[in-house]
């Protein structure tokens, strides 16, 4: 593959620039934002940019599309490539014209001299010779004309008209259909298979406890899988903890204890006059994509040996390629992963696992592409889950009501269970194949990198005496991995809830109390903006305030705030929530203010923040993975309810203008919204609920215990 800007930009189609990115689209609108960056820096029109599908054969390896880093990393790399390309191509044009490159400009790819058109274009000067290194930074945001404005998403027209767009819609010539029969429990061994009459042509694949079938039509594959499931005999071992005592499980499991941050101040600690302590928990949470995982694989013979091509909606095509190769004893050059868009993933879901399923089934019918789609039950029952967490907090106030000391202990399984993490392929079927063992516990990254359970484990407040410790569980009875915002959802829920408890102990307004401990001006700004949007000053019933003019006080309503800087280093977000908690907890409204530095697409940012806020509200009041000792039991939308149209809050988002470097937006809202909702519930009912989700039962228990 070529290096330099040619690795990312292709001018071979006249009038069009093909952008090669390693970042994959899954509904977050990243390709539109990347196209805006390219159009801006190359001085071409947005509709002259085409983004090439990501393939391990032709795309730059930019790692996994996760962690809200696509704009920060993928966008920066693309901008740099565009600046170099523009500079190199203009240098080539200048040499041809005998002028200095500084005199030339570009409009829609036409190269212009001060007197007008030169007859040259990017496409006429691009070629093998045009690889002189260019230089210089991108345009200052003040000169942007394409970036910085909301561009209509490139993918939406297809999506509203039902055109084939998703991997699930892809039909390849000669394609066969495969289905996998999953074990009846997390720990189960396939001990026998009764005689069964399958649809004609069905091919059964059995290897250890991996059982699947390939047929010519999907209906036949589904029917055959159903027949096989009835014919299979399993030895089941109960391996899961007691779902009703998550805290007991999290505190008792063997764990690795590591300091995250330690900033001791003995004088401050000695000044503590009042100490508070509380434990907060979040349950296991499912990604619950609207589409179950899907993949197509084709195993074939090349002159140099066997090879497999996989079409996948994985967030990490390169890591998936390596994991498939490692898992099956192939060389990476024997595996090609071609990304095709899937439904929203929200982290590491079953996308990678189903890709290996497809490879294993395709190996049984060489030459034919085999499409495997998981069932809804597979997706909810077997996909990796966001880990349950317990956050143990204690803090001391001094005589003046300021936080002098803070201790935070985070108990969690690791969040970094993606393929390749910790040197392990981590694909589900590998633990079912003959000779396979249970998947090793997920890593969590170094304790100081805010990469996993420690994401946002360090409060952003000014606290003189601070110690944060991670306890990473060394058993993984329930498979865990990355879920949107990783540890931030649990940590910020805990920190922001506890801030309100401390504010109450200090007799302060929660927003005022935060501002008194917040010297970071950008954090202060978003909090002040969100509070202003919500009309905070008049709202808090418990503080004797009255609602803004023109609004009736609501019986049973409560208001709460939350704020965080994502990862401690990325974008800022503050949220204010209004809830009703008379029977069910109902989140009525959310007001958010964000600072994401320079903004490529304002509407793209707002869409991501709105979506993050609604999803976080759903996690906070509704979602909890249920399980018994054998396996996951919340495998349908009935047993794993998410918020519906009549239940979602009205969301208002404002972007605080900023000239700071751009950050991602997709995960900003998760923590602050959870904190705001928790605080609003406490404001409404007068009792603190410390265990998510904030269901009617949890609220009733908290009121009883208060």
């Amino acid at each position: 593959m070529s290096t330099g800007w040619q690795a990312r930009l292709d001018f071979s189609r006249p009038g069009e620039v093909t952008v090669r990115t390693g970042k994959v689209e899954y509904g977050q609108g990243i390709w539109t934002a990347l196209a805006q960056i390219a159009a801006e820096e190359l001085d071409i029109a947005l509709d002259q940019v085409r983004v090439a599908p990501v393939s391990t054969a032709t795309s730059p390896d930019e790692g996994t599309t996760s962690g809200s880093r696509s704009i920060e990393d993928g966008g920066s790399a693309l901008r740099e490539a565009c600046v170099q390309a523009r500079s190199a191509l203009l240098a080539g044009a200048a040499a041809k014209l005998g002028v200095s490159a500084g005199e030339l400009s570009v409009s829609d790819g036409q190269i212009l001299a001060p007197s007008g058109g030169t007859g040259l274009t990017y496409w006429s000067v691009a070629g093998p010779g045009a690889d002189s290194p260019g230089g210089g930074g991108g345009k200052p945001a003040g000169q942007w004309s394409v970036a910085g404005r909301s561009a209509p998403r490139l993918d939406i027209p297809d999506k509203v008209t039902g055109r084939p767009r998703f991997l699930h819609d892809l039909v390849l010539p000669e394609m066969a259909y495969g289905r996998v029969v999953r074990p009846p429990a997390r720990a189960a061994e396939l001990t026998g298979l009764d005689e069964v009459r399958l649809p004609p042509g069905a091919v059964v694949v059995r290897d250890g406890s991996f059982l699947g079938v390939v047929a010519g039509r999907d209906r036949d594959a589904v029917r055959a899988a159903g027949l096989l499931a009835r014919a299979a005999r399993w030895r089941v071992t109960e391996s899961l903890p007691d779902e009703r005592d998550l805290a007991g499980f999290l505190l008792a499991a063997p764990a690795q204890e590591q300091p995250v941050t330690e900033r001791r101040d003995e004088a401050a600690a000695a000044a503590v006059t009042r100490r508070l302590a509380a434990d907060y928990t979040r349950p296991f949470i499912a990604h619950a994509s609207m589409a179950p995982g899907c993949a197509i694989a084709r195993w074939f013979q090349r002159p140099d040996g066997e090879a497999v091509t996989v079409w996948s909606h994985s967030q990490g095509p390169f890591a998936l390629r390596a994991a498939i190769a490692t898992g099956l004893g192939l060389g990476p050059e024997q595996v090609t992963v071609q990304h095709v868009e899937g439904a929203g993933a929200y982290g590491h879901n079953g996308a990678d696992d189903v890709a290996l399923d497809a490879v294993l089934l395709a190996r049984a019918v060489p030459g034919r592409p085999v499409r495997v789609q998981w069932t809804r039950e597979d997706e909810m029952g077997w996909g990796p889950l966001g880990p349950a967490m317990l956050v143990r907090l204690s803090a001391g106030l001094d005589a003046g009501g300021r936080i002098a000391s803070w201790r935070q202990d985070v108990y969690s399984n690791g969040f970094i269970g993606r393929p390749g993490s910790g040197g392990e392929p981590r694909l589900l079927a590998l633990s079912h194949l003959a000779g396979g063992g249970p998947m090793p516990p997920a890593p969590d990254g170094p304790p100081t990198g805010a990469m996993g359970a420690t994401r946002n484990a360090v409060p952003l407040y000014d606290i003189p005496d601070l110690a944060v410790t991670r306890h990473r569980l060394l058993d993984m009875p329930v498979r865990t991995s990355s879920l949107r915002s990783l540890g931030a959802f649990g940590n910020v829920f805990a920190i922001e809830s506890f801030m309100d408890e401390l504010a109450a102990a200090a007799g302060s307004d929660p927003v005022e109390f935060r501002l008194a401990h917040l010297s970071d001006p950008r954090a202060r700004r978003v909090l002040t903006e969100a509070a202003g949007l919500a009309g905070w000053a008049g709202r808090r019933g418990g503080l004797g305030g009255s609602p803004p003019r023109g609004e009736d006080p609501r019986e049973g309503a409560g208001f709460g705030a939350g704020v965080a800087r994502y990862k401690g280093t990325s974008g800022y977000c503050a949220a204010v929530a209004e809830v009703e908690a008379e029977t069910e907890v109902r989140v009525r409204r959310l007001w958010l203010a964000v600072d994401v530095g320079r903004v490529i697409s304002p509407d793209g940012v707002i869409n991501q923040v709105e979506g993050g806020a609604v999803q976080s509200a759903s996690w906070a009041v509704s979602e909890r993975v249920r399980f018994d000792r054998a396996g996951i039991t919340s495998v349908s939308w009935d047993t794993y309810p998410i918020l519906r149209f009549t239940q979602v809050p009205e969301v208002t988002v404002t972007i605080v203008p900023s000239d700071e470097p751009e950050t991602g937006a997709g995960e900003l809202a998760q923590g602050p919204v959870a904190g705001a909702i928790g605080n609003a519930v406490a404001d409404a009912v007068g009792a603190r609920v410390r265990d998510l989700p904030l269901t009617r039962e949890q609220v009733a228990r908290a009121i009883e215990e208060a």
Partner: protein
Amino acid sequence: MDRQQVRLTVNGEEHTVTCEPDAPLLDVLRHDLGLAGPRFGCGIGLCGACFVLVDGQARSSCDLAAAAAEGRQVTTVEGLAAGGKLHPVQQAFIDEQAAQCGYCISGMVVSAAALLASTPSPTAGQVAEALDGNLCRCGTHGRIVRAVLRAADQEGE
């Protein structure tokens, strides 16, 4: 299982397919008729991704046997645009940028079209009620409601 011939009217066209008596309509639409718009989400009618219009009513196609749709008018999202012009709901979804991943959007558009056919000027609350059987995981609910209200305004003009 013995297959049978099923005659379907989909987007105004007659089709005869050979399928099992219990073959889901969704499966026949996608695999036999090549329509990608209705999408599989759950298989038991709980998510709305596979919604189609059956005699004008929005309903799931994953838990309806194709044979049960004989003699009825089936309309998928592909059938809503007429004469090269998008249905007002489709245009409004684009105008409001009312999607993130978009996997649920076909079903949303179908439910919204059914609502506006019976209730041309709904309130936001009526839109939410009408779409309550359609799940969205990306959190684009607010935009979707705005899009449906915009489509209602434009149809009313």
